[in-house]
């Protein structure tokens, strides 16, 4: 019997030493999070990514896995973020006719709104005494994750903190767009979609596709343009 336990221990060590355990856990949590999200009626304030991340963290904590070792194994998945960022160029190309049709409001709004999205957060955090590392992690808060990871690494921020900020930004941007659309009021689906993508990246874009296909197209556009614009501008501005 005790021999069996020894073998179990060896098995656990062997699995933990290969990336396959990290990949399996991440995939499992991803599908479990999506399933749970559908079961609880797709609430706006609790997106699948948050559910999956909580499940995954819980499992890592319960199994007492080393977080660094998990991260090392998960490299096999995260390395795909590079090609995935390149892939965002394809819907951008496919929606080029939308950009042409509404180029004036987009060209005026995008640079101002994307810059302010970062500046508002930076000024508030700075005034409340945040360290440079925290500021660098908050700056790309409205940028879609694969691009934001690149920006934060370049600025010297913490990727985990940035990811948390990104998640919260996406959720509250979705809630605020819904709220302000009623208060202002704004009914144009193109504007709502664009605002969702610009401020709420992928989470806002997912919400926009629930409003309508047009809103979804404009959200992808807003998300893509904000990502590119911020990635170009922020590293230059931040070093000043």
């Amino acid at each position: 019997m005790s021999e069996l336990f020894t073998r179990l221990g060896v098995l656990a060590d062997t699995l933990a030493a290969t990336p396959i355990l990290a990949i399996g856990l991440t995939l499992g949590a991803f599908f479990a999070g999506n399933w749970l999200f559908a079961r609880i009626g797709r609430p706006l304030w609790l997106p699948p990514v948050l559910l999956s991340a909580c499940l995954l963290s819980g499992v890592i904590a319960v199994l007492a896995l080393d977080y660094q070792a998990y991260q090392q194994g998960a490299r096999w998945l995260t390395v795909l973020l590079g090609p995935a960022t390149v892939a965002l160029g394809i819907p951008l190309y496919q929606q080029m006719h939308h950009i042409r049709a509404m180029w004036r409001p987009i060209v005026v709004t995008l640079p101002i709104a994307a810059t302010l999205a970062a500046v508002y957060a930076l000024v508030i955090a700075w005034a409340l005494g945040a360290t440079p590392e925290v500021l660098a992690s908050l700056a790309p808060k409205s940028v879609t994750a694969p691009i934001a990871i690149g920006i934060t690494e370049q600025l010297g921020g913490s990727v985990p903190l940035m990811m948390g900020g990104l998640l919260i930004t996406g959720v509250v941007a979705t809630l605020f767009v819904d709220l302000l659309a009623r208060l202002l009021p704004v009914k144009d689906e193109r504007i709502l979609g664009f605002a969702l993508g610009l401020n709420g990246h992928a989470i806002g874009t997912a919400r926009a596709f629930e409003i309508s296909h047009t809103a979804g197209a404009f959200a992808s556009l807003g998300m893509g343009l904000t990502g590119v614009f911020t990635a170009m501008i922020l590293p230059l501005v931040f070093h000043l």
Partner: protein
Amino acid sequence: MTMLRGFLVLVLFFILGESMRMLLALPVSGGVLGMVVITFTLMVKGSVSDDLASASQGLISVLVLLIMPGVVGVFFTADQFSGQWLAVAAALLVGTFLSVLTTLLLMKLVTARGEQHRE
């Protein structure tokens, strides 16, 4: 097979973007450079192959899976930022409220003005 062929194109453009970043010492990530270059390439070419479209759709649909390991980190590195949670929370909540308000008002204003011009 077809999806892998499209994936190869994405990987090649990513390597191209990384090369540009390293060789020209640009402050932008290789993925973003690859995205900009592939968008312009498609605009010049005027069409996108089915292989590339399906590969990009596949990758974009699992974006959440790819960012999850990073999100999980916030639970394990949290104490590193103790004492700064107020600044972080205020920046995220108030900052996002202001930026959503700015975007909606600006878009509304410019769109309305554009339609007036047309009349």
